[in-house]
Every structure is written in structure tokens, then in C-alpha cells.
């Protein structure tokens, strides 16, 4: 059964790595629902957050293939209940929409959105939340005329207690062990 999974991939900052990751999905004809990349809490360790719909069996295999790539430090996959996630959406609506009564204002209050800027022609509204929430506001604003709409990729942090710094320590130990084995094999 297909489900939504969020992958958190920790990598070194290397050219070509993004393409290396993307070919893993392309090869299996998996579409990315959302994609985000940023530096993590560790300097020079980058964090990709990718949302895909697939089976658990497939996501497990894909995660292993990702983690195997040189340059990838750790890769995890999670279901929604294992993470806290957000997306940000920006809505550009005509300023005159605010003029007709207080409907737009009510929506902004109700959806806990806020106004970033007001110009004579347009206002920009920002809302963070789950996709369903930003989508709902989008639909509510639609009758007032939406000039532009954009939604970011998902960002997610995991509820698990072990953090990437601890994994990096493990990894360092594993690669030292591996080095010993390499020298023993005397290749």
C-alpha cells in the first residue's frame, strides 16, 4: 500500500550529489511530492527533506540506496506521526479584496496567517502549516482573486531522540573500524 513518507537525508556539501540522489528516484519512477535542502545544525552538513508516496518496502530500499552513496552521511524515512513538519505558503492578493467588508481579515485571523506587506495594488499573506492547511486557505482566498501563490517544500524534524551529531560520531567510529579492516585486507 502506498503511503506518504518523509525522507531526511544528511549529506556533505558536494557538487553533483543532488543529481546522484535524484537518479535514485528517477530510476524507480518515483515522483517527488516535495523537496527541500538546507544546512543542518552541523556546519557543512546538509539536510535534504524529501516527501514521496510509495510503499514501505520501496522506501526502505530507496533509503538504503541513498545512504550507500558516497557523500551521504545518513538517510532516514519517517511516517507523518514520527516527525513535526511545516510548509510555508505565500499568497499575493489584490489590495481591493480587503476593501469589501472584513472577510479576508477574518480568514487571516482564523488561519493564523499574517500580512507581510501591503502595497497599493496587492498584499502578501504568509501562512505556515501543513499542506492541507495552506491549501484550505488558498481555496478560501480564491474568490477574492489570487495573483500569485507559492508553497515551499516540507521541512521536518524528527521526534526521535538520537540526533545527527550522535550518528556522525557512530559514523566516524565505523569508518575508523572500516579503515582497520581495509589495511588488514591489504588491497
Amino acid at each position, binding site marked *: 500500500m502506498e503511503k506518504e513518507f518523509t525522507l531526511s537525508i544528511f549529506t556533505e556539501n558536494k557538487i553533483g550529489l543532488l543529481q546522484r540522489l535524484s*537518479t535514485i528516484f528517477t530510476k524507480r519512477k518515483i515522483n517527488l511530492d516535495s523537496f527541500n535542502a538546507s544546512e543542518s545544525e552541523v*556546519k557543512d552538513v546538509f539536510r535534504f527533506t524529501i516527501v514521496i508516496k510509495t510503499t514501505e518496502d520501496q522506501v526502505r530500499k530507496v533509503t538504503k540506496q541513498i545512504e550507500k552513496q558516497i557523500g551521504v552521511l545518513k538517510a532516514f524515512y519517517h511516517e507523518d506521526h514520527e516527525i513535526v513538519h511545516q510548509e510555508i505558503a505565500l499568497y499575493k492578493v489584490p489590495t481591493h479584496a480587503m476593501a469589501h467588508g472584513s472577510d479576508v481579515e477574518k480568514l487571516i485571523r482564523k488561519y493564523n496567517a499574517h500580512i507581510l506587506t501591503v502595497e497599493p495594488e496587492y498584499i502578501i499573506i504568509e501562512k505556515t502549516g501543513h499542506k492541507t492547511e495552506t491549501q484550505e486557505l488558498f481555496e478560501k482566498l480564491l474568490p477574492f482573486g489570487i495573483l500569485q501563490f507559492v508553497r515551499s517544500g516540507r521541512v521536518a524534524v524528527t521526534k526521535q531522540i538520537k540526533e545527527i551529531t550522535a550518528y556522525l560520531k557512530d559514523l566516524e567510529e565505523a569508518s575508523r573500524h*572500516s579503515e582497520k579492516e*581495509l589495511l588488514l*585486507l591489504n588491497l
Partner: protein
Amino acid sequence: METQTKDHTAEQQKKPAKKVTGSEALVMALLEEGVDTVFGYIGGAIMPVYDALYKYKAQIHHVMVRHEQGAVHAAQGMARITKKPGVCFTTSGPGATNLITGLADAMLDSTPLVCITGQVTSGLLGTDAFQETDVLGISIPVTKWNFQITRPDEIPEAIAKAFYYARSGRPGPVLLDITKDAQFGELEFNYEKVTNTISYVPYPKINQEKILAAAELINKSKKPLVLAGQGILLSEAQKEFRDFVEKAGIPVASTLLGLSAFPSNHPLFTGMLGMHGNYAPNINTNKCDLLIAIGMRFDDRVTGNLNTYAKQAKIIHIEIDRAEIDKNVKTDIAVNADAKQALNALLPHIRPATHTEWLESFNELAKFEFTKIIEKDCYLASGEIHMGEVIHQLSNKTKGEAVIVTDVGQHQMTTARYYQFNRTNTIVTSGGLGTMGFGLPASIGAKLGSPESMVIAVIGDGGFQMTIQELGTLAQLNLPVKIILLNNGFLGMVRQWQDMFFDKRYAYTELTNPDFIKIAEGFGIPGKKIRRREELSQALDDLLAFDGPSLLEIKVMKETNVLPMVPAGGTVSEMRLE
């Protein structure tokens, strides 16, 4: 982030650095890695490197091939025999793209390669300059690692990493793309081998609990079967493997690439697995109570239909690549480790055993296969020559001790079935990718990798014509590679499928062939063509005795099928006998 976790403070005093060009540094780095042979094809964007090679002629033998695909396959042939990374050089653009088939082949067959491609000057990157191709982008899916060098000072570390990644863990091809200005520029040359980078753990730590659990299953098993893969050869675990199966008394079946990891004439050897494998190991895959897969990846050509594959058996999978575990076949116990290390850990916990009755069941099935198939392939008295009897005689005449390189198709499967690989590490064949045209160039690399071995290239008439230009390389090197061309005038394996699955509609599989002997002679390689059984033995003797490159073309039956066969997606225990 520091990518190397190695402690550099303990480093011994640095040698005084010498200023050299990027090109020279590249060649010096290859020497540091012990490279003595490279395969390549010169062109504009790699000319500075070739200029440096000219200076180092005495230390590095450069083999000038006739097409870049020949270079990469030759490097593969050498790598498969030496277990060290094969090295090739090409120019940018078409030179680089011509490598792709070989990279894909090496990726699937875990062959260590370091391919170095020239690239346009860094200032021209992205301008669609002459012979510019995004080789980094193109090669990503078919390399274990790749990197573009745009500054001369990046060269030593990039080369050190390339060799480390190519050879360690599950080996594979790496590609370095080096811009022309990086080749011309200067740097202070200091070389240090790389043995550790943080994002790569080639040798996972063995989980002792898994070893004990595996040993328990093995000790309890009444009908165990070992599947031997190329991982045994790659980790040089032949001795450990033999000790293990002899102690536990377990019959051995081999994958195509695992052939020669264990002697074919050993009483525990039961043959090859898979689509065109032997009857007994395929049938008994679905009768055993325990499958122990070592250094193999349950390729679909081995397993057939996964839903009916060894469902009755417990599965132990010893495999260095974690991503291969539970990929195709779900395991009961997975040991994620190098084969040699895992076998060393396992051996003390194995109780000596013999499985006489179980072994006998293999012998019975082998007898059945002999009467139904082998006798008709290898022991014919009349009619045209069958490719089976050629390989059978070749095997006897060489005592199963030659290095055998094949191309892809019927002759390949026939060779895998009927050559007795009694000496270790003696088969070079394209498994995962099934690359026609692989054989001839790979045999050149294999011979250079093992000059003391007799190297025989068994090739079909289809594949031969895909890289036939490498006869030129062979002639120029005057290498004593013995080519056996099994000519049936067809793309035989495809014709077989058309026969079996497409109601004999032979769409574009029949070939009008050239005079191969004249072609060989044109290249300066002596050739002989035979078509009668009475000539076969003597012709093989002459070929084996000849000191120099030579071609023996054997006209074989036009329409024979390689049997038995598990049709694609079929059940392994339901091998077709006709």
C-alpha cells in the same frame, strides 16, 4: 566539515614538494597507486596528460585502443583478473560518452575502474564549447563516485580518493573529469593515499550475534545449499570459502560471475545457477531447507520468479553491500560484511558435517541433465559442430586452467556451462549488463593483467562485429590472445527466444557475415576457419600452441538452443528441457 577523519598530526615529515604540471601530477599519482598499464584514446582535451605519459613511458604502458569502448572494456578485463582498478583515459565529449557502456557494465558487475576524461577549459564549462559534454552528469547513474577537477591542486587527493572508492568495499567504477587548464596548471605535488572518508563505510563491522545465528541454522540444516557469488573472488576469500563448505559438507552452486571462485571439479560443486544454469542446483533451490548466499545479489537471471523462489528455505545472506540485503529476496539472517571476514568469523562455529543423501540428489539430477542435454551438446558423432563440444574439448585440452573471456550470448552461456573452471579467478564475462562487444577488448586487458596465463576469448559472430576494431590493438601489442569465434550466422540467443517465445519469427537475427579470416589477416592476425568435426581437435591444438594473437573460426550449428532454461520470470525448479 573535515571529510577525512584520519589523524593528520601523526603524519611523518612531508617530503619537499616539487612543482609540476597537473598532467604530470596525475601520472605521478597513478604511479603512487601502483598503476603500470592504462588504456585510452588520445584527443584534444586530454592531450596534456598524454604529453606527460610520453615522459613516463618507461613506467606506464599506455595501450592505444581503436575506440574508447575498447579502452573501458580492456580496463575491465584487467581489473577482473588483477582485482585492482583498471585505468583508462579518454578525451572529452565523444571520447567520454563512449565510456558509458563500460561504466554501466562495471557498475553492475562490481568492477573497480578509474576512468579519467579530459574536459574543456574551466572557463568554457557550460558554454557548449567544442567537445564539451556534461560527463559528470551523464555518468552519475553508472559510477560509484565521480568528480570534476578544475584546479591542478585538486589532483592528488582526487586520484587518491578515486582509487580508494573504486577498490574498497563493493568495488565499482569511478570517473574523474579534468579540465584542460587543470592539466596545464602547476601544483606542489604531495601524495597521500586515502583510506578513510566519513561518508563511506566500505567494511561494516561484523555483527557477532548474526554470525552465531547463521552458524546455528547451518549446523541444524539437513539440506543446505551455498550460492557462491563474485563477492568471494572480490574479497579473495576462495580459501576461506572452501574451508567453510568442506567443513560443513555443503553443496555449492555458483552464479555466472562466481564461477572459478570454487573449482568446478570439486565433489561439492554442483554447477551454475539461473536461467541457463545447471539442472540440479536450480531444482534443488526449491528443495533445500537452507540457502546460504555469499557475495551475490539474487539477480533476476538467478532467481526467476521471486514468488516461487526458495520459499521453503531459510535464507542466510552474506553481503558487503547493505542495499542488496532484502532487496530481492527476504532473508532470515543477513550478515552485512565482507565475504572473507564473515567466513573467517563463521568457520569456528561450524560443526563438521556431511549431507550424503542430499548430495546424492544433486548427482541424480546431474545424470538426468547429462542424458537429456549435455550428451547431445558435447558428445556428438555426426552432423555439424555444436558449440557445446567445442567448449567441452577446450576445457579438456586446457585442463580447465585457462583464463576464459567471453562475449555475450549463446556462446557465453555454453562456455559458462561446459568449461570446467578448475583454477581460481579465470572467467571474465559481462554478467549484469550483458554487453555484446565486451569479449575482445576485455581479453586484451585480461592477458595484460595475467601475462603468464593462457587467455582464450570465446566470442560469437554478432558480438565480435561490435568491437572488431580492437583486433588492431591486439595486433599492435602482438599479444598471444587466442580467439575462438563460434559462428552460427545468427544472433543466437535472441533467435533462441524468437524460437521459444515468438513462434520462430526470426526478426533481424540472421546475419550476413564478412569473411572473418580475411579481416583478421588484414589486421595481421592469422586465422583459420573450420566446419567439420574431424578438424576440431587439431584446430584447437594448433590454436593453443600458437604463440601470438590468432583466430579460430568455427562454423557451428545454426539453430541450437542453450538448454535447460528457466524462462524469464519462470520458476527455477521448472527448467525447460526443450
